[in-house]
Structure formats: C-alpha cells, structure tokens
C-alpha cells in the first residue's frame, strides 16, 4: 500500500473535506456534486415532512409517523379530521409541490442547455404562456370543439392540451432564435416576449368569451397555485412529469457537449438533432403538465439551476438531478409560506416565487452580463 493511501485511511472525515478542496482547485467538482445531491435528498425529505406537519390542524411528526408506520392504531394517533387533512389535503399538496418544483427546475435547466444560455426559462420565454393557452382553449371551447379529445385522453386532456401549447411555442421559439446552429439570446428573449404576449392575447379573448363557471376554472392560471392539489391532479399530471424527468438523465452528456455549440457537439459524436428533439418535447411535456395542474409558477426554472451551477458547476450529469431535488424542495417551502403567511387566507405561490425570484434574476443579469452574450 502506498503511503498516501494509508493516510487517506486514517482521518476519513478530515481527508474527505481536504479532498473536496483539492478537487476544487483541480477543477473537479464531481465529488462535491455527489455530496450535494445526497444532502438535497435529505433536505427534500425533511421539507416534505415539515410541509405535511405545517398548518392549522395539529399533526405532530411523532403522531404522523406512528400512524403511517402502523405502529399505533389510527384513532389513538390522530383524529379522523386530522387524518383527512393530512391524507387528502396536505399529502397531495406536498407531492404535487415536489413534482411541479422538480419539473419546473429541470425544464429550466434543460432549456438553458438547449439554448446554451442561462437566461432561457419556460416561464420567461413564453412556453408557459403557450401551455396556458392550450389549457384555456380546452376549458373554454372544451365541450363544443374538443369533445373527441376528452374521449381519447379522459382526465389527461388538460395536461395534454397544455403540452401541445407548450410544444408549439417551444418549436416556434427555437426556429426563430436559432440560425445555423447559433442561438441569439436577444432574439430568443424578445421572440419569447412576443410569443408570450400573443398567447396572452388569445387567452384574453377566450376569457372574455368564457362563462362564469369557466371563469372560476380559469382564474388560478394567472396566479399559479398548489391550492387545488388533489390525488386526481397528481394522477393526471404526475405520469407525464415523471416520464419527462426520467428521459432527462440520458440527455446530460449531450447537453454538456452542446454547450460548446451544435457543431462541436456533433464533432464529439452527439446526434444533435435527436438530442434537440427529445429535449424540446421533454421541456414542453413537463412544463405543460405543470401548468395544467398549478398554473404559471415563475422563476423556479431560472433560479434553481443558476444557484446550483455556482456551487457544483454546469455539468448536466449532476445539475439535472440536483435541480429536480432543489426545485421540489423550494416549491414545497414556498407553498408552506404561501399557506401560512396570511392565515386563514392563502397567498398564490406564484407571488412568493416572483418576490424571491425576480430580484434574483436581476442580480444574475447584472452580475453575468459579460458571459451571456448580452
């Protein structure tokens, strides 16, 4: 055994920290990234538990755990009312928060990789507006125009409509902003504003046409909220989100290569067109599904990947799973604030994420202007 190996065997914790630091100086952040992912798994679990326990009804961790683990009969641990609150309100809400947060953060990261720019985000460049338009179209014109769609897709119709809306916007955006393999940031952001405004205008017309019942269904899209979370929504959007999240790890190496440009990625053996197609469909699917169940929740997709890049770097093999975890955790946290800050009322979660995210976005802009081709 070499002397250096023996030293590594001695003080393990000290040498682990030392290795992290020496890796960092060598430009190797993979060990740090793996450590952070483990930490984020723990954080997500803790936040999930905290969310289930937070709220007006009393459900302490000990009681919930005892009940869930079947250590005590339900009646002893929790009252019937508390059980309903936990099982049918808080649990689906936390699950939906985790799913939607993960989906928003990952679609942000994938889109940023696809456009090779840290400012691309489905919310900012109009993809969410397009998805909303799809959903609103379905709600307002639903029974008269899209009867067959309901027949085929059942309760998946809404996420599917939002997916189609998001997909069309993403494709248009990509066509407009990318010329011979180079994406212009200015064109992308401006085209995103135009497409978002257009989708917003059409949505406005539809809202104008809507009747009272439809209006009530529509209202929450503008705000973004997890308030309507129930198991039905999770069943309709969850599979779409999970499938598009499951595809994403296979894009990681390609997205890394793509940061050097489309030509360079091709030189490095990446089937670029296929990569882009999969990335676009996956972004549109997860954005669409998220918008369908929770409306437009902004800034998660831009803030989460950016913070993570500062810590573990832009390597998508680590960035994508870390984004999913941190996105889910942060959205559950934002939701906890949303439902406890002005009791007994609830603030739409989109307001919280905008309050935290918009200044952060400005800070990114001012700090990194030179690196982003602006």
């Amino acid at each position, binding site marked *: 055994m070499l002397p250096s190996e023996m030293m590594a065997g001695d003080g393990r914790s000290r040498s682990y920290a030392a290795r992290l630091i020496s890796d*960092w*100086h*060598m*430009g*190797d*952040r993979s060990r740090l990234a793996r450590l952070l992912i483990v930490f984020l798994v723990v954080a997500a679990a803790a936040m999930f538990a905290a969310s289930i326990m937070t709220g007006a009804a009393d459900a302490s961790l000990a009681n919930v755990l005892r009940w869930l683990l079947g250590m005590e009969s339900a009646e002893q641990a929790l009252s019937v009312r508390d059980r309903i609150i936990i099982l049918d309100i808080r649990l689906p809400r936390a699950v939906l928060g985790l799913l939607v947060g993960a989906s928003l953060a990952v679609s942000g990261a994938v889109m940023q990789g696809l456009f*090779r*720019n*840290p400012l691309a985000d489905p919310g900012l460049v109009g993809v969410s507006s397009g998805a909303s338009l799809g959903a609103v179209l379905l709600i307002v014109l639903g029974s008269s125009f899209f009867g067959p769609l309901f027949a085929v897709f059942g309760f998946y119709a809404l996420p599917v409509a939002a997916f189609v809306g998001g997909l069309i916007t993403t494709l248009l955006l990509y066509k407009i902003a990318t010329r011979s393999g180079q994406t212009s940031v200015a064109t992308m952001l401006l085209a995103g504003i135009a497409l978002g405004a257009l989708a917003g205008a059409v949505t406005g017309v539809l809202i104008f046409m809507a009747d009272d019942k439809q209006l009530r269904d529509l209202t929450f899209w503008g705000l973004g909220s997890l308030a309507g979370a129930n198991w039905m929504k999770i069943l309709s959007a969850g599979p779409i989100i999970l499938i598009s999240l499951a595809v994403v790890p296979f894009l990681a*190496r390609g997205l*890394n*290569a793509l*940061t*050097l*440009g489309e*030509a*360079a990625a*091709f*030189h*490095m*053996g*990446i*089937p*670029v067109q296929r990569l882009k197609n999969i990335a676009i469909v996956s972004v549109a699917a997860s954005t669409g599904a998220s918008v369908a169940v929770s409306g437009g929740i902004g800034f998660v997709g831009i803030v989460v990947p950016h913070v993570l*890049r*500062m810590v573990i*770097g*832009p*390597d998508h093999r680590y960035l994508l799973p870390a984004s999913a975890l941190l996105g889910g955790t942060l959205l559950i946290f934002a939701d906890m604030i949303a439902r406890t800050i002005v009791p007994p009322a609830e603030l739409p979660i989109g307001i919280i994420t905008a309050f935290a995210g918009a200044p952060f976005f400005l800070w990114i802009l001012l700090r990194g202007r030179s*690196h*982003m*081709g602006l």
Partner: protein
Amino acid sequence: MIKASNLSVRLSGTQVLHGVNIEAAAGQLTAIVGPNGSGKTTSLKAIAGEVPYDGTVSINSHNITTLKPWELALKRAVLPQSTVISFPFTVREIVRMGLSVGAKADAADTDRIARDALEAVDLSGFAGRFYQELSGGEQQRVQLARALCQIWEPVQHGEPSFLLLDEPVSSLDIRHQLTIMRLARGFCERGGGVIAIMHDLNLTAMFADRMIMMKAGRVHATGHPNEVMTDAVMEAVFGCAMRVNATPVGNVPFVLPHTAA
C-alpha cells in the same frame, strides 16, 4: 486517410466550393491555405460532416455519411476557430468532455490523459481555472486539449485518427504557435493525420508535409510547400507580387510582406 472528392457546397444560395479534391494521408500534416473567403473553413466543415455537400468524403475508406456521429467521433476530432461558452465550466471539465466520447478507459487512465493533454498544449496547472476567464489564445488551447483527448491514440485498432484544425494558431503568441505546430507534427509522427487551415504561410512551410492552396472555392495548387509557395502562385492566389525566399539551411520557403510590390 481522408479523401474528399469533387466537393461542392452551397451556403445560403452561394456556391462556396466548386468540385474540390482534398486528400490527407496518415502520418502527414496537410495544410490548407488561401485568401479569406476562398473556402478553407467550408472545406473543413464538409470533411467534418458538418455542412451538406455534393461529392464524397471518406475517412479510412468509410464514407462518412454511413457512419453514426459517435463512430465518426472516434476517427476524427475537430478544433473550431473559437468557442464561446456561457456556462462556468472549469478547464478540466471542458477537457474531459473529449474523454466522454472514446472507448471507456478506467478512471486513473482518463485522469492521466486529461492531464497529459493539458500539458501538451502548455496549460499544466490550468485545470482548476474557469474557461470564461481565460484569454482567447488560452481558450483555443483548452479546446485543442479537448479535441486531443477525443482521439488520444493517433492509431486506434490499426486505423489512423485525424485531427481537423481550423486555424489552430491564429490567436496564439509565437512560442505557443510553435508548441502547437510541434504537437501536430508529433501526432503525425505517431501515425495519425492532421488537416490544418493555416494563415501563416511561413509557419505552414516549416511544418506542413503537403500544402493545399485554395482560391475562390477551388484548389489552385497542391504539393510540398516548396512546390506550392512560388512567386507565381503567390501572385495568382493572393494578387500581390511577392518574392518567395528560402532559408539557407533546410531550404524552407518563406515570404515577407516587405517584398510586396
């Protein structure tokens, strides 16, 4: 060997290449030279399989259109003119991207290759630096190290690998111009092949085995630098009358702008 026959390329309506033939043998440094806009980069892009073309391009007798991107990536690596990145990658992370392509070596091996590649481009100790904070010349050398990692063995499974370099020394100081040209030569001497687009004719004459002189989308002259760099060719291709001289030792041709009429 790389063989491009009868290459024609149209880019946004303009015919950029008119039936160009380019051959590059393993063990040789083939330099493409010529005035701005003569089709050098487009030729290289066609050979890399990056732009649509008429004609055929083969690498080691495989038509490149029959190869998958990842198969092609094991046979040739490409250094583009400049690469702008908007994410904060470290030098090490960029260089190792080249390693994710080839046959999987074990971790110790990939570490060694990445380190050796950085050393080869004279960037030892730069692994932990951020790519975006480097100068243009340093960035170019990082990209070269990345390309080198992709085809680290000049001969793989009995087949030569090829480096396609688009102006590899254009933004480098004189010391690093020599470093990189020697590196390219070394790659050839170990059995690989290099095609390099060059602007510096003197440097080309020092290092190239074959010189391909292009003009207006066609190959004007091809051969050993001594055959290609003549007063007549210089005037015909660049449109300025210049005296080509040769070093007393080694008879390497050189041309000084001072001699232009």
